[in-house]
């Protein structure tokens, strides 16, 4: 694996190239720490293995506000950092929602909520049929889980017994009918191995995201500040 390491300060600096904002506001991005830990310490993937069928798959379902995602990918060498400076322009491959056909390392085009988890379940199922060791990790938002397509995917994945699968749900308490703790309870009720961690604590995130269950799906609820 030729993973290029990066630190959080570097990613924050890259994000300012996208937003023009000061560090303290970009650091508030709810996905930042999870993405950093995933690409630094968890996913078995790198820019030179994008066509390896056994690479791990990461699907960013919550595709809006993809600045942290682009910064992490740039920091890990998936595309030139200069791309960040043209963010959102007509000729730029980087827009406000990622396009998998334009950006190396982006596995799904997202932006319409409620698609990533079902896509990831289908991918995990196909990988199992091929007996691939790859795992699939999908990042969703808590409000995104209001979309009904997720409910079907959560039940289906448990029903067919997928085990190479982790969903990380960023909880900033922005679901329309939020009740604290209910999201984790929903996964657990459907038979998922569920843990809730501090979404800003890299140690907790690393342990939870690296955890694999031989016979169960894994749900990690990453609690961040309220939106």
């Amino acid at each position, binding site marked *: 694996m030729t993973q290029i390491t990066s630190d959080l300060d570097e990613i924050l600096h890259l994000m300012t190239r996208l937003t023009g904002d000061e560090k303290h506001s970009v650091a508030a991005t709810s996905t930042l720490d999870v993405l950093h830990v995933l690409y630094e310490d968890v996913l078995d993937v790198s820019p030179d293995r994008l066509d390896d069928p056994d690479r791990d798959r990461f699907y960013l379902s919550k595709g809006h506000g993809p600045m942290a995602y682009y910064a992490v990918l740039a920091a890990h060498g998936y595309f030139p950092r200069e791309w960040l400076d043209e963010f*959102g322009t*007509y*000729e730029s491959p980087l827009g*406000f*929602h990622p396009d998998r056909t334009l950006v190396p390392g982006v596995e799904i*085009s997202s*932006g*319409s909520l409620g698609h990533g988890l079902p896509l990831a379940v289908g991918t995990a199922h196909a990988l199992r049929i091929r007996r691939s060791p790859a795992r699939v990790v999908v990042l969703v938002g808590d409000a995104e889980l209001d979309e009904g397509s997720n409910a079907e995917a959560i039940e289906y994945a448990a029903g067919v017994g997928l085990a190479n699968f982790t969903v990380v749900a960023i909880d900033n308490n922005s679901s329309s009918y939020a009740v604290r703790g209910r999201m984790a309870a929903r996964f657990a009720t459907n038979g998922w191995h569920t843990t809730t961690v501090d979404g800003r604590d890299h140690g907790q995130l690393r342990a939870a995201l690296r955890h694999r269950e031989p016979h169960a799906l894994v749900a990690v609820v990453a609690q961040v500040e309220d939106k």
Partner: protein
Amino acid sequence: MIHTFSAFLVERAFEQIKLDLAHQGVGGVLVSSGGSYDMASVGRTHQSPGDVALMSTIPGITIHAPSTAEEVDVTLRLALPDTGLHYVRVTGLRNTLSHKAGPTLHVVRRGGGPTLLALGHVLDATLAAADGLDATVLYTTQVLPLDEETLRGNVGQDVVVVEPWHEGTSAHAVSAALADRPHRLLSMGTRHEEVRHYGSPREHAEAHGLTGPRLAERIRAWL
């Protein structure tokens, strides 16, 4: 009345529109915003150039594309008291001049050349194209059903439809109105292939060929 972005109102909820409104025989006013490329910078997920084509498959639906604030206001006041199903397509892109909203087709410009039917927010661009073509320009806020009588009274042999959604969406309605007479039809709208670019609505209008100079160029080549 239901309102959200066109992609989510029409495409995501289409089966519910088909079955839970139309098939139940229930009316309503569905108002979308965003159109084909209002939100160019956020990409395909928030663009729905196929909305008018999709909605036109619903039996009995009335489709409106008012393109000034005044036209939107009048359209909503017409649709709300009605018991039928209405789709009102509202975009941030707009025309300079307002016309009376409703079923009537307006003759905006008379000429001796081809007839250009402008639908939605492309009236300004269509008028700009018409200048050098000596064209007649028609405009209506009601895209479906079309005002066939006025259309028939104001077309010669060459008919051009300019529509800021999937090219060819309105061709069937126009051809059906002119079925008994020799005519040829050019449809100009958004391209069917994805424009995989971000940027601004102006850049997307250019990419689809929906600016005055680009329309004039293509019509001239066709004539």
